């Protein structure tokens, strides 16, 4: 019994080491935060849209699942995912809507003119309030919203071909069927 007592520090340390090992698992980013908005109704918005008279409004988008991508011309990682977004829009006919987060409309327009426009429509969120309502903490962020306006998934940082294949497209397909 008394000996067990002296074993205690070792046991505590081993448990601790176990936790450390789990924390070191690959593909685990401590900086990435889960969204608090998952399975909650998307915050409503009605934004002036870029180069278009029709505003980008949540209510108008409901009915079919869709994807919202927060981007900005000043955001470097956004450039990384841009070709992928182009491909998704052209090949997979992704229902992709853009929200230009804290960006000057002219700059966003120039970006899309230079690199191509993957979005069906782009809303202008110059003061970042819609982003704040969504819980955006960095761009790019991508949200999958179902037909009833519930947020089903958030991707933080640039999308990759892998996450698109394995997560985004299957989810959309599933939402489209149900």
């Amino acid at each position, binding site marked *: 019994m008394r000996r067990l007592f002296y074993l205690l520090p070792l046991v505590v340390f081993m448990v601790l080491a176990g936790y*450390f090992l789990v924390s070191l698992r690959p593909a685990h980013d401590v900086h990435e935060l889960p969204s608090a908005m998952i399975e909650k109704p998307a915050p409503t918005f009605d934004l002036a849209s870029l180069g278009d008279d029709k505003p980008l409004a949540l209510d108008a988008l409901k009915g079919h699942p869709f994807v919202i991508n927060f981007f900005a011309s000043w955001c470097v990682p956004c450039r990384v995912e841009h070709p992928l977004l182009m491909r998704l829009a052209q090949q997979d006919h992704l229902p992709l809507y853009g929200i230009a987060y804290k960006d000057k409309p002219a700059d966003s327009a120039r970006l899309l003119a230079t690199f191509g426009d993957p979005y069906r429509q782009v809303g202008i969120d110059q003061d970042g309030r819609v982003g704040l309502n969504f819980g955006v903490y960095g761009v790019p962020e991508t949200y999958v919203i179902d037909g009833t306006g519930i947020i089903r998934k958030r991707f933080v940082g640039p999308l990759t071909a892998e996450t698109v294949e394995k997560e985004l497209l299957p989810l959309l397909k599933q939402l489209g069927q149900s």
Partner: protein
Amino acid sequence: MITELGHFALILALFVAIIQSTVPLVGAARRHVGWMAVGRSCALVAFGLTALAMLALMHAYVTSDFTVINVIENSHTDKPLLYKITGVWGNHEGSMLLWVFMLSLCAAAVAVFSNNLPPALQARVLAVQGMIAVGFLLFILFTSNPFARTFPAPPNGQGLNPVLQDPGLAFHPPFLYLGYVGFSVAFAFAVAALIEGRVDAAWARWVRPWTLASWCALTIGIAMGSWWAYYTLGWGGWWFWDPVENASFMPWLVGTALIHSSIVVEKRDTLKSWTILLAIITFSLSLVGTFLVRSGVLTSVHAFATDPTRGTFILLLLVVAIGGSLTLYAIRAPALKGGGLFAPISREGALVLNNLLLSCGCATVFLGTLYPLFLDAMGGPKLSVGFPFFNRTFAPMMVPMVIAVGVGPMLAWKRGDLLGALQRLWVAYIATALVVLVAFYVTYGGPVLAVLGLGLAAWLFTAVLTEFAERIRLFRVPLSDSVRRAIHLPRSAYGMTFAHLGLAVSVAGFAASAYAQEAIEILKPGGTINIAGYVLTLENVTRIPGPNYMADDAAIRVTRGGELVTVMHPERRFFPLQQQTTSETSIRTNFLADLYVALGDSDTEGDWTVRVYWKPLVPWIWIGAVIMAFGGVVSLSDRRWRVGAAAGASRRRNAQPMPVAGE
């Protein structure tokens, strides 16, 4: 060429460390004097080699050798010389080299200064230190080689993070690392004692100076980091409960407990296995801190380029070093028998209380720091544990601790007279009451807790002075007798008095920071800010080129009652290379309060945001820490650590006065 020399020196140091960690151990087991002596020569040679590696890397930095990747990533030809030198440890690889350098320095110090140790003990201590060195040398050579080259060399380097281009970088990391790594000596002594299966007063006496020295270095290191943050941050915060700060604070807490518990081992021949455990834990916490910072498992504002391979490697080191020593502890510690009666109301009883509270405090900091990691590893929610948690849990534990620090030294060994001690502290009651009343009156309507904090500081300060006065029988015997007694007091007693006074001074600083005032205004030249009786006028802002930056320097005239106090010059520095701006604050102190000015942004109309803070007693936080460390140094200089400490000290234990703080 010199870079390769450094690299080879490091590889050679690894082999020497392998010898150091094996041969003396075998020698000690077989009582082979020659083999045991190998440890000393190895420690000295390894020190020479790591010093050579350190110098080689410094040479690469100073000469801007851009074939070395580490230099490219962290240096630039335009960087001032001071930051070329200190930039060596301003990055992961270089700071690991500093770590190993400090480790070999400690081992060399043991080899040189501990010749009065029994040869077997010294051999084992050096062997354990050799093992730690092997682990970290392997880590550097395999995952973090600072000497890696690239060809062709780029025309220039990427420069050092401007935030690190501060004199603080010259002192803060070396002291901090010396503190961390210094505890490896206590760790090595503990492991050696477990191997030998013997812990006695002599052992405690031998470890004590090493623990004290590391503790002093760590105290200074932490205080300097805090001060550095204070003057660069631009809003005057000095402690943030950030994981990396906590990583340095935890060894300090347990190290403090260790210093106190080893006194009990020495004086009363008890608390042995506990003291051994503390020695192991103190250094283990240094190691865990290394892991936390360099593996990227926690989010911290202190960025290190992290890499999972490094994390895995350090985790492996942790398991070997900590797991190994704790296994040894589980096997050998039950046999360590403590002696004698132990009364709760006694000096040793008070020291046990000190240990209890410090350990619980450390466990709390540990839990708060790692809880997000625990939850995350179990798939739980992501949480933040910030200052409100620590203020609500850690701080309340430290209150009874500080109160007890005032009483503990008044108690006698073996059997104390608590009531008598409390009666003899009447001056402290009066002082505390006075301070609380005055503070309450002056700051009426302000934060109540801060008033209590000031009272706490007053209590501790006067209690420590009372204890000192008792010791020299002040006002009880003629003054000349008191002076004579004061002169003949052991240095260790002075050390304790200073360290505890320092704590009181710091506590006052912590408490009074609640009274800080701030004024943040947008000023045009000629505009003024009023704060705490001062009037600050923005005279002008001029652009001054620096060596590798462009500074906007504001001249701010400070007057009080119409009289000029000073002209302050806060700056904003723009570093074009990194496209980064830093804030160079201007602080005017009269040691009772700081007037703190930081220059913010300007807008297109030439208005400047100016932040002014008035922070009463804040300098006391660091002054207190310096006094604490000074106390440690004074205690360290106690003659009796060095003279007659040779083998047999334990035999003479009863005949000779013990050099123990608070005798």
